[in-house]
């Protein structure tokens, strides 16, 4: 697989997803675009409700009613995923693309043993004979740091501890050697010591298999630890994207800046008062006109209240959507 390293894997173009609720249309994802290459780890951070999960679910065809893709395209290895039928989608899930969640019970089936589920995944997606599947399953459990894998194979998910279930879910997601792993807050519910174990594990496996990862989290420490690139979402859009170094050392969007300085850091050496982001999160049913961050932004200008800011390219892959980066245009329009 490694010869593909660096080739384009996933292209998302102007993706729009809405939920049609009795109270009105919620534009959960309001037009986002990005590319992901083989072997790349991209983080997605952003406020609760900003559309991180909905965006990821769209790739997997896991959107639930009343949610619908209303615009744009998703292309995986050159194929239009949005045109897939149910059968093709099922082939994709757990095969080429896998997903892990915050709650492992979302992807583990409570009525089958761990062994059953792993063997089943391999025989379905890879047409591997059962004996061979069992052998590979044991290897994978060992790889994710489960001791006594023979015994675990015979157990049901509820008989295992939280950290162990998380590992089993990861084993299950990785057993078919996906090109793309989507991880939605996989360590958020775990203690930091277990989180550290799981992150080390994911980094190890990623190095060996060169899969690409979309890593959704609200924890900036986790992003710095595991990601190559980050996209920062606010109110259904990517407002800034860049390498981890660009986002952490030269953040540009006022929301990114606010996020970075609002929380105390584990490496802080003395007390400094926190600088919160003021105001409350966007009401996605009635988002403000223009830049949705404007009501909370200390730099907001007149134009911000009327028009969504265009993308400005700051470096090769460093993009930001903020009028502050478009001074000339702002002057022209405000005049």
């Amino acid at each position: 697989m490694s010869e593909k390293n660096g080739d384009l894997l996933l292209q998302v173009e102007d993706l729009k997803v809405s939920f049609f609720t009795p109270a009105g249309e919620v534009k959960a994802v309001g037009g986002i675009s990005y590319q992901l290459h083989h072997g790349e780890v991209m983080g997605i951070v952003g406020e609760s409700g900003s559309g991180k999960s909905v965006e990821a679910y769209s790739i997997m065809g896991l959107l639930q009613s009343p949610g619908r893709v209303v615009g744009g395209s998703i292309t995986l290895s050159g194929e239009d995923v949005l045109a897939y039928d149910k059968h093709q989608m099922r082939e994709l899930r757990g095969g080429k693309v896998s997903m892990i969640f915050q709650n492992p019970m979302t992807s583990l089936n409570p009525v089958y043993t761990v062994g059953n589920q792993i063997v089943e995944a391999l025989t379905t997606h890879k047409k591997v004979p059962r004996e061979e599947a069992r052998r590979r399953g044991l290897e994978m459990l060992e790889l994710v740091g489960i001791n006594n894998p023979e015994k675990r194979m015979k157990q049901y998910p509820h008989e295992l501890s939280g950290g162990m279930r998380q590992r089993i879910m990861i084993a299950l997601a990785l057993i078919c050697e996906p090109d793309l792993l989507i991880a939605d807050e996989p360590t958020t519910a775990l203690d930091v010591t277990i989180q550290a174990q799981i992150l080390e594990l994911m980094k190890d496996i990623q190095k060996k298999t060169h899969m690409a990862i979309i890593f959704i989290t609200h924890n900036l420490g986790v992003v710095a630890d595991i990601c190559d690139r980050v996209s920062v979402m606010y109110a259904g859009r990517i407002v800034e994207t860049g390498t981890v170094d660009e986002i952490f050392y030269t953040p540009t969007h006022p929301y990114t800046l606010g996020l970075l300085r609002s929380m105390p850091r584990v490496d802080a050496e003395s007390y400094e008062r926190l600088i919160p982001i003021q105001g409350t999160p966007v009401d996605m049913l009635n988002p403000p006109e223009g830049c949705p961050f404007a009501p909370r932004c200390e730099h907001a200008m007149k134009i911000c209240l009327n028009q969504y800011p265009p993308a400005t390219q700051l470096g090769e892959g460093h993009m930001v959507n903020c009028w502050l980066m478009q001074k000339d245009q702002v002057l022209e329009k405000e005049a």
Partner: protein
Amino acid sequence: MNEANASPTTTAPGDGNVLVEIQNLKKYFPVKGGKGEGRYVRAVEDVSFQIHEGETLGLVGESGCGKTTLGRTIIRLYDPTEGRIFYRGQDITTAKMLPYRRKMQIIFQDPAASLDPRMTVGEIVGEALDIHGLTDTKQDRKDRIAELLSQVGLNSEQANRYPHEFSGGQQQRIGIARALAVQPEFIVCDEPISALDVSIQSQIVNMLEDMQAELKLTYLFIAHDISVVRHISNRIGVMYLGKLVELTESYELNRNPLHPYTQTLLSAVPIPDPQKSREKHRMILEGDIPSPINPPTGCRFHTRCPYAMERCKTEDPPFLEHAPGHFAACHLL
């Protein structure tokens, strides 16, 4: 070195008066049904410390280590199994709690679940005033509710609304207003920001700090996130499987963690700085936390400790003062 099992007296900030003291506190829960029937969850095991007036004492440790149980036992929401609790020098281990309820309050992790959905915000805050008969007239009561809401950054028109009409951060503010209503001296903050969005967490942290300065409050602040706990606390206690394993001044804990468990805990927290993160050497703890029903003998950490020795399996290390105000329990020290 001093034997400090009874009660670590430490150089604490505040004016030095001890507000809360616990001595050898234990809380066991009986196991109901199943294999464990007849046995106990040893949630808090022999914990002693003092909290000084005006101070924030932080508590950290992994899920299930007994933080919540300890916090609730201190304010007697649970009756202790053994040990003593003192409030301003009064033994309240078995005292009638109503008069002390006014002095000791709690803020919960899940703001939505801790507010009665059928009551308006005004009723929720007002109920606390009524229980203790704190306002004389209707107008008094109304004014006080308005004052409390404005203290937590809400406005008086919002008093007639129901909890579900508020965001998580606002619901937590309501919970805080309710706790403040009775003019408490001591508040147990049990994961007050864990359920909130990151952008709202810092607003609540700043508010708790302002309240403390303004109203001379004393906090026991419980959280998973060691960075937040350090930020808000003067001293931090680290718990493992029901035991207090280390206790010292907040930034000292960072500079000079003595207990191997504290060291692994600190090393596990990811740093929001890519450069430092690449250079960081992680101590990865093996395995999961053992069961508090049948905790390991000797040092409870010995099954996961990278430095465990023979004697750690049988001898429980004493909690000793190794530098002024810096306590830890480990045979290595």
